[in-house]
């Protein structure tokens, strides 16, 4: 109960503190706008440029008019830049990362289409550009599904077009002797000659024709277009190249950077409270000392979580950043990150004898950790030894966690490692923090 009282007090203070508002929210939001406009493809991701997905199209046999219309349609959508090329060059483009994906129309597509033979479309994907290639795959898959649905409806409504299956045409069927005469004649004939194989088949077909659902199901099972998807492995020097949406990288990276400053300021307040005497006053109340430090940990973490939530929400609403495959993954990543960050900076506050020393330590630590932990530069583009050093900062794991969710669209269940590391850091450091706080308070070190 008293923990909630202390958390509520910290929130009221945070809301009343204009300087904290500027540092914790206004500045990060300003940076979000600048980065969003620079790297996020403009408001709502509307403009071409970085947000447009490069796609190679292979289909030399398609008539020129059809190719032009297809290219124009894709380009005007604003989502794609289109290059018509041959299969060899398309393969190379995808492997080099110059195209996120290639769509390959088979050479005899039109002939097969008009003779109702099965057509196979191919999509070649660049695994290093999984998000963009995935978008291409989704759109093509949806197009094929729409075509199949239309074809199925068509065949259901006009079953006589099943002639290609080698059956008698519907017209011949309806004009056969089985249906000659009045309705009563047909009815009697069906009952009387029910053992006749010809009538038995006719009865079956009639029932099938009446059952549209069955007909539709059968039609859907016959797919005139199939889709095959291949991941193309990168070539030589392009093996390490990972295409990323820059804003999807920068927003979480910079958000964690600002989170560290915000959380550090919150933890530094422990020194200010000590200097002002409010910490001592709390310690003289009946509140357990462990509750004082836990409340501080939770309230700073909550404020940090609120800050990240606002930044990500603004990034999503205005610049269409990817928030991951499900809300839970992002929520867990944000929670673990904030709890770990607060535990780290609380530890720093408890071991720093004065506010000034803590100030200096946090500034140095945040800048160094941000540089080596991947907040400013993608980890893939940093030397191995720097990445190895970066692993010692919690922010490295936070960045990996956000990249998994927001860049690679993976749920936390697929890649729980970074989350577990952050949870471990938070738990271990908080145990240490509680012990240090209790010891220092018991020895009068906080008086």
């Amino acid at each position, binding site marked *: 109960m008293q923990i909630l009282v202390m958390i509520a007090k910290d929130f009221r203070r945070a809301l*009343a503190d204009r300087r904290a508002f500027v540092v914790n929210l206004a500045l990060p939001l300003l940076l979000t706008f600048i980065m969003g406009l620079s790297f996020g493809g403009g408001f709502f991701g509307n403009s071409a440029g970085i947000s447009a997905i490069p796609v190679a199209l292979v289909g030399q046999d398609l008539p020129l008019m059809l190719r032009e219309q297809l290219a124009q349609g894709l380009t005007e959508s604003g989502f794609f830049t289109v290059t018509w090329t041959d299969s060899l060059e398309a393969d190379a483009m995808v492997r080099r990362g110059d195209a996120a994906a290639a769509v390959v129309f088979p050479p005899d597509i039109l002939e097969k289409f008009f003779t109702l033979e099965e057509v196979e479309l191919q999509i070649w994907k660049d695994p290093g550009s999984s998000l963009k290639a995935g978008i291409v795959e989704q759109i093509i898959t949806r197009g094929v599904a729409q075509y199949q649905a239309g074809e199925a409806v068509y065949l259901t409504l006009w079953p006589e077009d099943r002639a290609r299956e080698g059956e008698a045409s519907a017209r011949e069927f309806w004009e056969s002797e089985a249906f000659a005469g009045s309705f009563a004649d047909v009815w009697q004939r069906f009952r009387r000659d029910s053992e006749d194989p010809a009538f038995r088949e006719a009865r079956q077909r009639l029932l099938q024709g009446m059952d549209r659902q069955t007909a539709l199901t059968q039609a859907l099972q016959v797919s005139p277009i199939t889709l095959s998807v291949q991941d193309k492995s990168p070539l030589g020097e392009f093996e390490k190249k990972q295409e990323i949406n820059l804003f999807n990288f920068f927003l979480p990276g910079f958000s964690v950077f600002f989170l560290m400053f915000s959380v550090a300021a919150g933890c530094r307040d422990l020194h200010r409270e000590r*200097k*002002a*005497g409010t910490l*001592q*006053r709390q310690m003289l109340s*009946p509140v357990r000392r462990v509750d004082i430090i836990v409340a501080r940990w939770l309230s700073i973490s909550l404020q940090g979580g609120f800050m990240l939530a606002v930044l990500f929400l603004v990034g999503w609403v205005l610049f269409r950043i990817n928030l991951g495959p499900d809300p839970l993954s992002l929520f867990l990543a944000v929670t673990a990150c904030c709890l770990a960050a607060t535990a780290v900076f609380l530890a720093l506050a408890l071991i720093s004898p004065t506010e000034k020393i803590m100030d200096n330590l946090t500034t140095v630590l945040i800048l160094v950790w941000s540089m080596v932990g991947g907040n400013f530069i993608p980890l893939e583009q940093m030397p191995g030894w720097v990445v190895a050093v970066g692993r010692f900062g919690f922010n490295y794991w936070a960045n990996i966690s956000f990249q998994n969710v927001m860049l690679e669209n993976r749920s936390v269940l697929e890649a729980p490692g970074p989350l577990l590391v952050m949870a471990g850091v938070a738990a271990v450091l908080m145990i240490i923090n509680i012990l240090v706080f209790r010891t220092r308070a*018991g020895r*009068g070190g906080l*008086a």
Partner: protein
Amino acid sequence: MIQVKDLVKKYGSFRAVDGVSFAVGRGELFGLLGPNGAGKTTTISVLATLLPANGGQVSIGGHDLAAAPDQVRRLIGIVPQEIALYTDLSARDNLEFWGRLYGLGGEALSRRVSELLEMADLVEQGKQPVADFSGGMKRRLNLVVGLVHSPEVLFLDEPTVGIDAQARSRILELIKELSGGGLTVIYTTHYLEEAEQLCDRIGVIDKGRMVAVGDKEELIRQIGDEDQVRFRLPAELLPELTQAAAGWPGFQGGRHERGKAVLLAGDGAGLLPHVQQWLEGRGLALDQLEVERPNLETLYLNLTGRGLRE
């Protein structure tokens, strides 16, 4: 209500509190008088459970401090020397926060907060941020925050430091009212006049030691009831002076202190013509003359050999 026996608090080898003993009765206003660095705040911090003692026994409200600090904390309130308030919150928010920490809530808390705002003359300013308050208003709020849970014992650590005379007067009135209401108060100060004006009994503390305890009259009696006549005089002339003064009316004795002769007499003013004549006879002028009635300042000077503000 409070028993302190041979209390010791050390910082390394330095003994900030060195065997202090005193007792305070229920409803008594006890002053701890001493200069800065004498050990007053350290003593209060130990009694309030903020610092662990290195020796001695303390009992508050019948609870042993070392064995039952939690019970002691429920009995006591503290008003620290610093303005221990959240200045970004309003006065009411501050009082409500501290009240909730002590388990108050609902209507009882709301009523108590209103009482305390009234007590501190801050009803109209209750919703203003404390940062906008004057020094005196902050001090008054700082004081009533220590009362939010209706403690039986209140520790006041120099609550009038840094405020003007009018604000100080209001705080002292408030403390008198509280003491009159039966609250036990320990009041630290280095202002003699505050201790004289407020306290039922006074403990004089210097260099971590309690050098005298008693009410004002008892303390003054410790240095006698004589006036003190002080003036500049070379130390080597003191024997000659005391020899001559033995025949002057009311003369009780003399000593030399920091460049000055100190003559004790029942009527200090009556001694002055004799002093003047004696100095003139030796070609000396009467320089830096002071005639003092016995008071706590002279007591302190006698006990410690230095002034309270040195």
